[in-house]
């Protein structure tokens, strides 16, 4: 009774607190990033983002993100399929392992790879012999980013695959459909929205990853500096306008992804209703 009587006040108080919190924590800083980026005029902004090293950093981030997303999509689909469609010993362990990157600090992830592929590793002589450079090179950055983002896709599609059940796939197999046909015509339409949603999350995280990448990159300007690393470099060098200008681009990409995410969520919910009505 008490709660119901006060619910009007309580409701608005909670909404107010949330709004203030979001404004202080998110909106103000974002506005400030934009403001600082353009403070000294659009010319300075353009100069900062078209700087040779800035362009290289943007290019590298895009390359790493695309590679990571492709690899994680393939891996995520395979892993989810195995976990939901087969029963095998150690399945629980694998499901838990997939979520590991969410609980491990990215710095640790970076260090794991340094230990695995660095000078002190037993693999090092072989890699050296084969001419493969991982640490302080682009492959290392990709590895670190993959590690940090690989739960995103499987976490989105595993629940959907579980809810779908195996009946339709079984029916299709019984009629003579092969694995690929079953995936394309039965499973994919079902997980489509969840998969795209997972890809969007994975992209966002891959673009912005700092910690793990920082350990592995070696900070070679123009070679192994991704956008977040480049921003840090500028910032440490007191080039605030440059730092915020590049940040603005990263923020812009994030906003695009946010919009995509909302569209996908809406479409996914709608198609879900369609199928289960």
């Amino acid at each position, binding site marked *: 009774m008490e709660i119901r009587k006060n619910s009007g006040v309580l409701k608005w108080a909670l909404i107010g607190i949330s709004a203030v919190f979001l404004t202080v924590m998110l909106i103000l800083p974002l506005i400030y990033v934009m403001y600082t980026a353009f403070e000294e005029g659009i010319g300075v902004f353009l100069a900062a983002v078209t700087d040779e090293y800035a362009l290289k950093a943007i290019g590298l981030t895009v390359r790493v993100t695309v590679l990571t997303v492709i690899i994680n999509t393939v891996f995520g689909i395979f892993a989810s399929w195995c976990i939901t469609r087969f029963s095998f010993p150690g399945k629980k362990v694998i499901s838990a392992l997939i979520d590991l990157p969410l609980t491990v600090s990215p710095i640790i992830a970076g260090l794991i790879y340094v230990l695995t592929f660095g000078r002190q590793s037993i693999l090092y002589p072989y890699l050296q012999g084969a001419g493969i450079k991982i640490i302080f090179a682009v492959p290392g950055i990709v590895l670190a980013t993959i590690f940090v983002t690989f739960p995103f896709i499987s976490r989105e599609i595993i629940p959907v695959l579980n809810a779908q059940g195996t*009946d*339709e796939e*079984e*029916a*299709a*197999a*019984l*009629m*003579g*459909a*092969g694995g690929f*046909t079953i995936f394309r*015509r*039965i499973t994919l*339409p*079902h997980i489509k929205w969840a998969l795209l949603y997972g890809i969007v999350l994975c992209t966002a995280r891959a673009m912005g990853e700092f910690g793990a990448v920082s350990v592995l990159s070696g900070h070679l300007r123009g070679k192994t500096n991704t956008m977040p690393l480049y921003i840090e470099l500028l910032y440490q060098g007191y080039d605030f306008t440059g730092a915020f200008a590049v940040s603005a681009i990263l923020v812009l990409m994030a906003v695009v992804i946010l919009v995509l995410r909302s569209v996908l969520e809406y479409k996914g919910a709608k198609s879900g209703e*369609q*199928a*289960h*009505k």
Partner: protein
Amino acid sequence: MAGETENYVELRHINKTFKNYKASDDIHFGIEKGKLVGLLGPSGSGKTTILRMIAGLETADSGDIVIDGRVVNDVAASKRGIGFVFQNYALFRYMTVYDNIAFGLTVNKCKKSDIKKRVEELIELVDLKGLERRYPSQLSGGQRQRVAFARALAPNPELLLLDEPFAAIDAKVRQELRSWLREMITRVGITSIFVTHDQDEAIEVADEIIITNRGRIEQIGSPGDIYSAPKTAFVAEFMGSPTRISNISEFKGYEQLDRTIHAVVRPENVSVTKKTEKSRYPASVEHGIVERVLFRGRELELAVRVHGVLLTANRRLEEARIAEGEAVDVFIYRVYAFHENEEVQIVDNANVGTENLFYI
């Protein structure tokens, strides 16, 4: 052995264990070509497992499955020439009715024009004209069942398996669909096995019934045989809606039976008459008290206590009304009697015939 070769489908001593649960225990039966067979048993008795093993969706631990004279143990599910209607139909929810039915033909790379012809033929057969472009979510339960049926038949299978084809359908439409399915299968002329836990359904639809219980087969026979001559205690207690009587030798007309024997009696074998009415066998009626009267639409269902046992009996609506608490005469025509693990005997009231007074 000569008879066995006529069977179109044969299961030979099939065993199947899930973890440590024996889902199929020495399953052995044969089905003649063109027959419509019902697998009937309570939930969890292993019916679906049998169906899935025939289809190749599950592998038996031991035993052979023979289809059309060929052992198919190692033949892939898709190569067995089987149409399968899943319990909840498992229609492809992201495909239209048309694409659902065409699926089996499409994946087997049939010619486009042939597919179109066949799908149209089936849509005609199952009377779904005009719904080709709908999605499963836009269909009623009965329509979904018909799509599932058409989809299973599309590649011209030699054997049709249906798992609880009526379970997902409202009681009202179910009756109608039973006769529809029966007629369809007869028209197509395909050997079929369907699973059900509903005895009325099995009796009405099947040519032959196989009764399963705890992974074993209890009895195989025509609906008439199974109903009127149950062989095992389980079947006697499963068919009809019988009451179990453990003191049958105390009842008039059954004094000759062993004191330790169990019996079941079905409502249609119990006649209840008012004290004021003339009983057909006045000397062998038992005294009973009516505890409940339920209106069942076409008839009344009476629960009558006799010798401490609550018997169920039916009475026609046009007969004189009986009230709850009324003392009545009860006559039991027939019981099915058995010792544990022995064959069931059909025992008629010993006084029938000797006292044939008002027989019409």
